[in-house]
């Protein structure tokens, strides 16, 4: 069930390869020299206690934050220090740990924003006058622009149908009216609309009850089955065990273990880290209602 469907061609270069990543905040070293790689088609999980530096690593990869040291190569190009827009254009999309939907936009618009980088007809690639052309095209809306928009809207429905009838019936409702779990789903839908080469998911099941978690697991598994490359941060270890090709364990900004799920699970360093910090992920209190605010003992 969780066997890799299309085994990665390990011989070629990884899609994402970060080496020696460092990010310090004042005295705190959030990320202290991490190496990390993801191959095309792979699902790699990053686990570790709170404050281990997982989200910070995501921020560095997605360009929201700049590393103090280290290199990040994506699809052969160095992307360390590039702007988030540039990195998105290169093919990385992400979700956020606490959910950052556009509160006043409808579900459909939220997801369409995900496809922003794929707009071609309305965003001609011309230098200098490109923005003005975009404005003119948006106002005039020739057939090509309308067709593109219609296609994308169809695609939005398609993506939303991944989540059954969780989102589709609410497609025109503003995101702020959604339950927490639904907002997380919208985020994933938005990221998928970007058709990313690499999808970064930051605790996609935080705040979800067991049923919802199980649903999410199926969805991620199906994405993986389609060949989507995924880098996943997740606390729920059984989910990690079932989905991952490889697991990377961070503690205190350092990588303390890496390998197949089973191997990592029994690694003494990992157990030590988890025991030392209290067992956070696996024993997370379950059963909170879907509408509840994030009540897991997880802080940024």
């Amino acid at each position, binding site marked *: 069930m969780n066997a890799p469907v299309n085994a990665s061609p390990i011989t070629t270069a990884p899609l994402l390869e970060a080496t020696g990543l460092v990010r310090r*905040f*004042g005295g705190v070293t959030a990320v202290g020299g991490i190496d990390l790689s993801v191959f095309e088609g792979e699902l790699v999980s990053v686990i570790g206690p709170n404050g281990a530096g997982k989200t910070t690593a995501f921020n560095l990869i*997605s*360009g*929201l934050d700049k590393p103090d040291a280290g290199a990040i190569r994506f699809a052969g190009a160095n992307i360390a220090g590039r*702007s*988030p*827009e540039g990195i*998105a*254009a290169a093919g990385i*999309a*992400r979700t*956020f740990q606490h959910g*950052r*939907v*556009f*509160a*006043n*936009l409808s579900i459909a*618009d*939220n997801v*369409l*924003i*995900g496809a*922003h*980088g794929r*707009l071609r007809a*309305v965003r001609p690639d011309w230098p200098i006058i490109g*923005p*003005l052309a*975009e*404005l003119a095209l*948006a*106002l005039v*809306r020739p057939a090509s622009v309308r067709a593109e*928009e219609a296609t994308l809207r169809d695609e939005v429905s398609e993506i939303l149908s991944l989540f059954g009838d969780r989102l589709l019936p609410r497609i025109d409702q*503003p995101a*702020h*009216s959604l339950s927490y779990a639904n907002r997380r789903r919208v985020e994933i839908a*938005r990221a998928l609309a*970007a058709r990313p080469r690499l999808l970064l998911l930051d605790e996609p099941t935080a705040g979800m009850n067991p049923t919802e978690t199980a649903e999410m697991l199926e969805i991620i598994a199906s994405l993986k089955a389609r060949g989507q490359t995924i880098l996943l941060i997740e606390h729920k270890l059984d989910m990690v065990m079932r989905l991952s090709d490889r697991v990377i364990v961070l503690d205190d900004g350092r990588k303390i273990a890496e390998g197949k799920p089973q191997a990592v699970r029994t690694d003494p360093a990992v157990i030590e880290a988890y025991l030392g910090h209290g067992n956070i992920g696996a024993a997370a209190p379950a059963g909170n209602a879907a509408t509840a605010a994030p009540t897991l003992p997880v802080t940024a």
Partner: protein
Amino acid sequence: MTSWFDHTINGLIIGNIYGLLAVGLALIFGVSRLINFAHGSVYVVGAYVGWVAVSVLHTPFPVTLALVVILAALLGIAIERFGIRPLAGAPRIAPLLATIGLSFVLDQTVQILFSPDPRSVPMQLPNWRLEIGGGSIGMLDLLIGGIGITAAGALFAFLKLTKWGWAVRATALDRDAARVVGVDVDQVNRIVFAIAAALGGVGGVLVGMYYNVITPTMGFEATLKGIVAEVVGGVGNVPGAIVGSLLLGIIESYGVALLGTSYRNLFAFLLLIAILVLRPNGLFASRHQLPPEPMTGTFIAPSKPIGLPVPLLAALAAFAIALPLLIDNGYLIQTLTNAWLYALLGLSLTLVAGTSGQVSLGHAALLAIGGYTSALLAADYGFPVWLTIIAGGLMAAGLGTLLVSPAFRLRGHYVSIATLGIGEIVALVILNWESVTHGPIGVAGIPPLEFFGRPLYDTNAIYWVAFAIMLALALLQVRLLSSHLGRTMRAVRDDDVAARSFGISLNRYKGLAFAFGGFVAGISGAFTAHMYSFINHETFNTHISVLALTIAILGGMGNVGGAILGAVALIGLPEVFRIAAEYRILLYGIALLLLVRFRPQGLLGTV
């Protein structure tokens, strides 16, 4: 020159004075994340309380000060309790508007009670002077400096050493978290407003004595300079506010020394912009800092816009078109013409501030750019008016976008402060760039509006053209909002970080919002210039920027229909209150406060 020493001393003296206001503004901003536009009004009230004490009650100086401290503090508490606190759950822009409304009410009350005449506040200190450099400084200079520095020191100690100070700092860091750990946030706010107001009031009376003149309208300018000083020192940073004030004073003084008096404010506002762009957290912030306002969707709270049915809108438009035929009332038609022109300004700002989240406080500058471009091209170069009006729109779009582009990297209130400064800079450049703009003399004899080559004088005809332009641009804006640009701009507003992660370049879309909005505002300014036949650098002043924001907020941020409704309401209200003569601006302020209080998301709701 030998006078640099004197210029430095002079800079310190005026900086001293800015400091009294900046400290209070910094304190309030630090805790409430609020630019308190009513702070200057507290300063005015303090000055008049002082005047009553000195001139009517004949109190000795310490008693005068004590009276001012007590009454101003009470006023601060009242402002917090009745003006700000009820808006805790409202959109974050609402308290800003509330402080603007409060400042109207307070200034007008003072004006009604004490008449608009300037008054002298006799100095109650011995007129002892210290020769220094080529000039001299007085006891009051030292006292003002002493009070400023002592206040900052005492505040610093209060913040660092006391339990309440800890609570204030906790609240400043994270209001919700502070509440969770048991801080009485309301009490903290009350304390902060009381302290800030007391300082502001003392500032008013000391400055009144210093210059020997107080007027009910002196608050606005004082607030502006206080804000600049505060930003220079680092918003919310109390000791920084003092240093920022002194620095501002010195820079202004050197500006005057180098280029002349009319460049003084230009230096002040260029300093502001430079600081905002280069060191947005103020001069004293450490390098590696989080973005100034880490919260997302800063200003716009979710609300359900009221959808008006299309037939109703069409009927309203038809009625507006038929109106001049139905009644013969040039005054009403002119007032509505003004309303349509301000609706254009409202449309522009609601796009920029409401849809894209860039709350501009310098929007009058776009009117000025459009107005001057069209007026000069038509009056000095003889181009046909219809062409120059379009040129005005384009110039406002292009130049306006270029000028605000340094502010694109800023967020939240910083955008407002930066645009405020940019607006002032535009007005000052118009004043000083005489060879092109005619400087203070303005542009007279601007050719009248024309319609296919025929001059337009008739009130009704002007009305119809204004309405047609407004309607056309409003529909265009509706079309823009329904395109991918609409959702992209709203995404930028709701969460710029998430937007960037999906490939949305903030500069590009903020730029487009300003370009479209600039065009709309520029057309309005150009049309206005030809209707007025005369403009100068004061025609489109800061008060108009504030009015524009009021229109956008009142109508509902981002809401096209709301901008039009807001313009009709805000241009109409002062006319409706005309019977109240001297009381009308007071009523206007009260109406504004009530609206913010009971409908903070605007009449038609935020889109």
